[in-house]
């Protein structure tokens, strides 16, 4: 990182501290200082001094924000609080409630008529690892006078261990529109298996997007031996590892070894994408002997509909798309989310369905005026509202094992929240503010 780049970024942050747009600190996502800078200017000089002071504690310098007069869907024990206030300080929620005193140093945003809910967490945001590096892109080669196009490289191979953080490319254009959808945190996964990475959705500050480079274990499976063995052999090894210190040492030396030891002991969750209903049944069967494993299954609604009996009463969470789908072998539409809810199975939503964070993104979701429309439709057709809202934030946080710090609006939790002009599930309302770790990543004022 060049010094100039650093200065530019901090300067930008600093300038945003100045009261603007009625106290909103939105940066519009892509604003940069217009060169040439006039360093001789007294105000600029003052800024530079401020930068030097701030350089050591960039986050601490974030403004204190108070959002008042809002209806707050806390997703916590407090439930929905009407006409209440949230105070955000140092990236965390300082206080929530009806009678919260607004600190003197706070920038006050009046959210009258608006609703605040926790930021959307996507528990299964698939990134195309191969496309993120240039040498793995599809290329054309000539063999013996014939032109052959070789498909893109490393990421395509199944069953290879991928540590997503090592391939994370924060400058990808695919992340740019995500704040205005309401995403605050993503669990990045790739094809095959590996270790996910959890990121803050703050594409304006690419250097600080990475939240947890050591994410959770993920895998994609189908009903084939080598595919299922990805899970079975790792759990088998980890079981031996939990009984023998030597084995544990060996595993800790392997790629993802420690992670799988934690999965086995229930200290870390496991998320698996199942290609079909049979894969779900096989997966549940394979994991069943390991009582501590916190398993989450990602699959299509059709697959869940088939395999629902094998999920009932099991210690399993699910991830579905908030869509309507066809019942297996019929033309009857059904809501997979509602089916899971009625079967007593906890689930989270993933709003994205393809490798998203690539430049050639087919991102119909973020092009929508109202990205939560499918969720709203599910609620209209009978899915309880609280269940639907929880599936956007609290459940994904639980699935990812970060529920202690994320997924709900409570004092002490990280300040990831969304302010809507009206009800979040009303197609007439708009997302007004997206706040990630106390910083505004999207503002629509």
């Amino acid at each position, binding site marked *: 990182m060049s010094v100039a780049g650093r200065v530019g970024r901090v300067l930008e942050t600093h300038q945003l501290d100045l009261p603007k747009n009625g106290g909103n600190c939105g940066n519009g996502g892509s604003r940069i200082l217009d060169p040439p800078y006039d360093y001789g200017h007294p105000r600029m000089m003052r800024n530079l001094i401020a930068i030097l002071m701030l350089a050591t504690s960039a986050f601490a310098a974030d403004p204190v924000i108070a959002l008042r007069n809002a209806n707050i869907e806390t997703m916590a024990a407090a439930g929905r609080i009407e006409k209440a206030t949230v105070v955000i300080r140092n990236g965390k929620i300082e206080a929530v409630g009806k009678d919260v005193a607004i600190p003197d140093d706070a920038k006050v945003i009046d959210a009258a008529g608006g609703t605040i809910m926790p930021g959307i967490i996507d528990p*299964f945001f*698939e990134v195309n690892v191969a496309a993120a590096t240039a040498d793995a892109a599809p290329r054309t080669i000539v063999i013996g006078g014939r032109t052959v196009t070789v498909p893109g490289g490393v990421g*395509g191979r*199944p*069953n290879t261990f991928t540590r997503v953080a090592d391939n994370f490319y924060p400058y990808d254009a695919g992340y740019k529109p995500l704040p205005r959808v309401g995403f605050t945190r993503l669990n990045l*996964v790739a*094809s095959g298996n590996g270790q996910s990475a959890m990121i803050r959705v703050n594409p304006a500050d690419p250097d600080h997007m990475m939240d947890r480079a050591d994410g959770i274990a993920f895998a*994609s*499976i*189908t*009903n*084939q*031996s*080598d*595919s*299922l063995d990805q899970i079975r052999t790792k759990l088998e090894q980890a079981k031996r590892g939990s009984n023998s210190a030597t084995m544990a040492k060996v595993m800790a030396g392997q790629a993802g070894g420690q992670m799988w030891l934690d999965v086995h002991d229930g200290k870390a969750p496991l998320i698996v*994408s*199942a*290609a*079909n*209903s*049979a*894969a779900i*049944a*096989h997966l549940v*069967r394979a994991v069943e002997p390991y009582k501590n494993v916190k398993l989450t299954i*990602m*699959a*299509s*609604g*059709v*697959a869940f*509909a*088939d*395999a*629902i*009996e*094998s999920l009932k009463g099991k210690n399993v969470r699910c*991830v579905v798309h908030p869509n309507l789908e066809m*019942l*297996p*072998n019929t033309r*009857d539409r*059904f809501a997979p989310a*509602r*089916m899971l809810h*009625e079967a007593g199975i906890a689930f989270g939503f*993933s709003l994205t*369905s*393809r*490798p998203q964070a690539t430049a050639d993104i087919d991102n119909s979701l973020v092009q929508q005026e109202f990205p939560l429309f499918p969720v709203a439709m599910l609620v209209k057709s*009978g899915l309880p509202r609280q269940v639907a809202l929880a599936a956007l934030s609290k459940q994904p946080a639980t699935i990812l094992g970060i529920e202690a710090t994320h997924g709900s609006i409570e004092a002490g939790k990280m300040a990831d929240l969304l302010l809507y002009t009206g009800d979040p599930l009303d197609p007439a309302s708009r997302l007004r503010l997206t706040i990630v770790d106390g910083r505004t990543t999207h503002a629509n004022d």
Partner: protein
Amino acid sequence: MRMTKLFTTFILGLGFVAFAQEAKKADAPKEEKKAEAPKEAKKAEAPKEVKKPITAIVGADIYTVTKGVIRNGVVLIQDGKILKVGQDVTIPEGAIRIDATGKVITPGFVSVNATGVAVAAVGGAGGGGPPTPGGGGATPQSRIADSLNPFDRNIQFCLANGITTANVEVASGGGGRFGRAEGEDDPPFPLPPELLEDDTRVCPCCGMAIIDTQPIGPTVPTDRNARRSAVVKMTFGDMSNMLVKESPFCHMSAGSFAGAMNRHQWRETIKRAKQAVKDKAAADVSGEDTAPAATPGAGGRRGNVTEEVLKLVKKEIPLRTEAYSAEQMRDAIALAKELDYNLILDGVHEAWLMAGELGSAKVQTVLTPRSRRRPQPGRDDTTGSSIETSSFLEKAGVPFTVAPLGNSVSLDGLPGRDLTSIALEAAFAVRGGCSEATALEALTIVPARMMGLADRIGSIEEGKDADLLILDGNPLDYRTYVEKAVIGGKVYYDRMREKIYPVGPRQ
């Protein structure tokens, strides 16, 4: 909501035979063991009888297959097994009564031939990301138990046509110089063998039959591998007791024995396998761990002594191969006599010519009564198929099962989506002159014996698996529908529920 309704009906359906599901789940590992050692399990469970709920199906004509027809009889089912069958059966107090007055009960049909049912997966039907290349399904690298797909729609089609157990081919045999390599996918639309191997070719210009010439050189010897298959019960949505047995046959393509060199290769393979069995026995006596040759595949790529071949020489499983003409059948019989193994022949178009020979050689056959082969001019013993083959086989005491024209769920196939089905194929055998009893055996006990599962399936007898069909008429009538298909005492198909066939009454 529809979904809930669907599940409720499903659960009610299960309650119909009201199996002690919880109890069953609780000793699930035991159940698996039972599959391996059914006799032991049977003994072990005898004292528990009192506790488990009993279901009684009453009022139906019961075609037991092995013990005649019981008019207006009673079947008692307990713990997935048949507890009692007969007319004078006292129904225990508290038993769940199912009225099947006027209906017909037969054992579930058993198919020796199936492809693309229950094992091939519907790959990439969802999930978060792109499906794993290969899309799922059985590959030679994948174990069958891991490739089962209990949610395959084809299972329901099979059940709708009465098939409760099928031998599903998961990998075609490879090898042979012009054969497909092992692991290569099946063609998407498998052609019936008589189409592939029909030698009734006609000259395009003059319309005269082309007579085969002998090849100039001997066929190049290459290793042939047995086709992989597994016996699978059609328990839709329930994987726990689905896989019954792997490799019930040593199933070799006819080409494995074609030509002197191939035959030599086969003799060598058998010789090596016999040696391996002998070595193993000797090692067991002397207490050594393993004899090197006893390990499957020890022979290397050439003359591979596979698990199937070892079982073949131990007479645990029979050799199964295709033989259409009398000449091919005689060759196969001679080889089986020489090398001493049991034989199942598929096709057997010209069996009517030599039924006696087949009978004295104790050959079992797989017959497709509708399949046709024209007489071939220029070859004395090639006289084509006959609809009467079934009656010739019956008279000569040659057991035969029936196979539809195709092995998959397709037009003309296993449970054809037109009205052809495996039972209709058996009806064609009756058309050819055999008795209805023999035709019903061809659907049930004969294939069960072929697969070595006669102690579990294929007839309605005490102690056997409660795999049965409730039909609305004679099993061999083309109008008859399967009302309910029961496997292990549980209803897996209900005509009124699945709506695969018309649900209304006939006018």
